[in-house]
């Protein structure tokens, strides 16, 4: 796969680290009960199709970003702001 880094452009997937499901809203710091945090940390959307994920260009500019990617085809949808 080629992953589009918002700053460095298309780069080989080997330069990136995957950061998990980005469709979930992280509770604001200091808020959220046990159940909310449980769902945020442990439950995954895991769709077969369009998805949004966190990636970091760790062997590059070290930017984290949200990436739209289709888990059924590995098609890249682009960076999500």
């Amino acid at each position, binding site marked *: 796969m080629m992953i589009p880094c918002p700053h460095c452009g298309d780069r*080989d997937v080997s330069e990136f680290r995957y950061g998990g499901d980005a469709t979930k809203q992280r509770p604001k710091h200091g808020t959220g009960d046990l159940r909310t945090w449980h769902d945020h940390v442990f439950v995954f959307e895991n769709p077969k199709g369009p998805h949004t994920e966190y990636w*970091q260009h760790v062997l590059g500019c070290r930017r984290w970003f949200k990436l739209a990617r289709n888990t059924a*085809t590995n098609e890249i949808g682009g960076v999500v702001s």
Partner: protein
Amino acid sequence: MTSFRRLPQGGRIDRARPISARLGGKPLPGFAGDTLASALLANDRLLIGRSFKYHRPRGIVAAGIEEPNALFTLGEGAATEPNVAATMVDLVDGLVARAQNAWPSPDFDLMAVNSLLAPLFQSGFYYKTFMGPSKGSWMFYEPFIRKAAGLGRATALPDPDRYDMCYAFCDVLVVGSGPAGLAAALTAARSGARVVLAEQDTDFGGSLLSCNDAEQEAWRLACINELKSLPNAEAFTRTTVQGLYDGNLAVLVQNRSHLFPSAQKGEARMLLTQLRARTIVMATGAIERPLVFSNNDRPGVLLASALRTYVNRYAVAPDKRAVLVTNNDTAYQAALDLAAAGVAVTVADHRSNVSADILTRAGAQGIAIFPGSGIVDVEGAKTVKAVKLGGPHAVTVECDAVGMAGGWSPVVHLSSHGGIKPKYDEAVAGFVPGGFPGSHFGAGAMMGTFGLSAAIAEGSNAGASAASHAGFGKTRPAYAPEHATDRTYAILPTWAPTQGAKGKAFVDFQSDVTIRDVKVAHQEGYRSVEHLKRYTTLGMGTDQGKTSNINALALMAEYRGITIPEAGTTTFRPPYAPLTMGAIAGRTRGSHFRPVRRSPLNDWHVKNGATFIDAGLWKRAWFYAWAGATPETAYVKEMELVRRGVGLADVSTLGKIDIQGPDAAEFLNRVYVNGFARLPVGKVRYGVMLYDDGIVLDDGATARITENQFYMTTTTAQAGEVMSWLEYLLQMQWPELNVQVASLTDEWAGMAVSGPRARAALELAFPEADLSDAALPHMGCRDFVFGGVTVRLLRMSFSGELAFEVHVAADYAISLWEHILKAAAPTGIKPYGLEALASLRIEKGHVAGLELDHRNTLDDLGLGKMAGKDKDYVGKALRFREDCQAPDRWSLVGLELMEPDKKLRGGSILFAASDEIKGHGRGYITSVTWSTELNKFIALGLYKGGLKHEGEEIIAAFPLKNEQARLKIVSPHFIDREGARLHA
């Protein structure tokens, strides 16, 4: 008697350059341009091996990569390479080859008795027996089965050769250099696009190399010359496109084995290229199918197209007569070329109607044609003697060779690597690409286009489309040679054998799968293509069923009474052909397997007799020669040095992070469980951070340098994780915080000066600096300039002694380290290594390594009290999950060995004195050391209920060595509990 011979002239071999290779210890003469296969035929060596299961005599079937039978072991000693197809090996001086799967020799093979037991070895054989008499019986049979299986023999010696890897980028990749591929590459290159042409063969031209037409040869050379003249085009031979991966990544492997063993230093036997192509044109051609009939595996039975290649390209022909059996028109190209070479040819054509054009052209060459007939049986065991024809012309024809023309299977592998299934094309009687993504194009035989001018036209179009898709507009197509005609490919699909003979009719030669095996699979219900393949092993050989898959699929469809498309298709996975493991690994092996990370002080350690130990990627000084030769003894002396005097340790591997910004304090206050908001400037604080799940992520000391700048340290192991975690929180979750982080791990070196005489040592090293307890109290921090360089002093202790960490820019580390040792020599200061470092912290009860294993909570580690009650921090919510708060969780304890004569071991399982010694125990030992203070073995461990059991005597069990020992549970702080030494 002779079956095959070298023709006096013709072919693409260089008769001026004779080659002497060796086969099975005997010379195998040939010419430059020969393959091992063509040389074998030229020397009339038909019988070249034995089959996998039945050990039947086998010969060469093909002239290309699809060869199922002719596998040899090349090279000797460490350079041994088994299972190489003779058709893909250049005949070069020094080549050494051996036959396989036959003992003592293919000619006289003892295992041939297998063929007598043949009726037993039908599909599913293994699944139905070898179960008795008792449960474990398979273990008795397995060794024999394993010995019998397994093609060639590999060497256990390390591969002596070099393999290389590179990355490349292009606009248009053209796969295959046949007529379509050459046209595509040329047309694309003329547009100015960056073009790469990959050809698997030793020369460009594909099917043109097997022709004997002067005009076509001229066209081929013209294309190649123009292509080579264009600066934006690159063309590679011996280069197989092994697979296509996401993002148009094509993996090309160039095989340079023909240069070995005489290769130059640094020259690679194979080069793997990861090529990112904007667009891809596939012109991968087609592979001819055999026909299935009784004894169709006899040596001398080849593909018709192979016979044509051998006669035209290698000038090797059957001695007198060849019989071709066909169900389509293309066989006649072979027939005519063989006839032209003086071979008498008989054609048995399954079709009762053969076109007039063919009849006249063939008749003119004296080729006998028997319409409506096929081969019933083949006579001869180790070579073909004659064939029995069926149908209206039931005659027996003596011959030296048989050519099978069962129709063509387009090479759709690459097009389906991307996940698009091939679709069946009735007219072609084969599978063609099921479609292409926008950036892929196809041309020529792989699309089912078999005519020469049609293929060239299609290639030109594909090349133009690919170029324009890659953003290159104008180009000029490559036109076909003037007299190029489109020979017809009328085919009457015939899958089942002509009836009337009892001999084995093979579908898959290499896996020894007969038509009967397919029947049995059908009977037993293994009917889906995948079941058929897995149950009969059909198509699972090194040839990956290139010649057998379609025939088998068609036969299964016939038995099921459904159409071929209904029966399904086979999925093609990379690699296209067997791919040398060394080529995939490239240079990344041995000492280069993974990077080595070295401390800025590394060179000093090396020079001064340190023994190193791996800690993740780091090489760390384990212990020093001054203290002893083995870790067991050395670390104890180094511990004593620190407890009684002063020692110097390299702690540069600690993670270090620069945290700056108006919200830096708030940021740290969030990520650490304990408060950092009000940490005064010039102070250091020990902090612990959790992950969102409430489990301990890491710990370390962080200093406040200025109001808005902090200097964080992490554990060596978690440094990378913590850095990414902080970046994630700042960039993705807490945009409201104005903070910048930067890694200082490589910028700053760190050295710990520890021991009662630490202050004395540093006062000698830094005479200008006031290091009194008042000026620099415990957990104080100060920067000052020494020798023109900023030095950062942090007064903190991992060992429990009075200690300082001296940090300095890495460039100056060795200079400062040597200065301290020299200046402080009167204090007896010496270096100590990782083993002592880790042992001292155990005595002090600091958690590390195995105590921080992502399983433990703050409270498990006895750090619960650190967490701010009325403060929020990452992981707070889930920290309070039910079981995380359970009173009887395994938590940190200190352990003392009660039996002086015994040894304590890490990984021991803990039990209460009254427990039966079985099950999972009540905990385990994480870290062990000899305590120089207590003169006994002590340990840290996790124990159910933890320090509630302080003072209890328990048992440590180590059944792997049948050891048990009595321990006492004590506080994990074995020394100086009130911390007097720290504040000295």
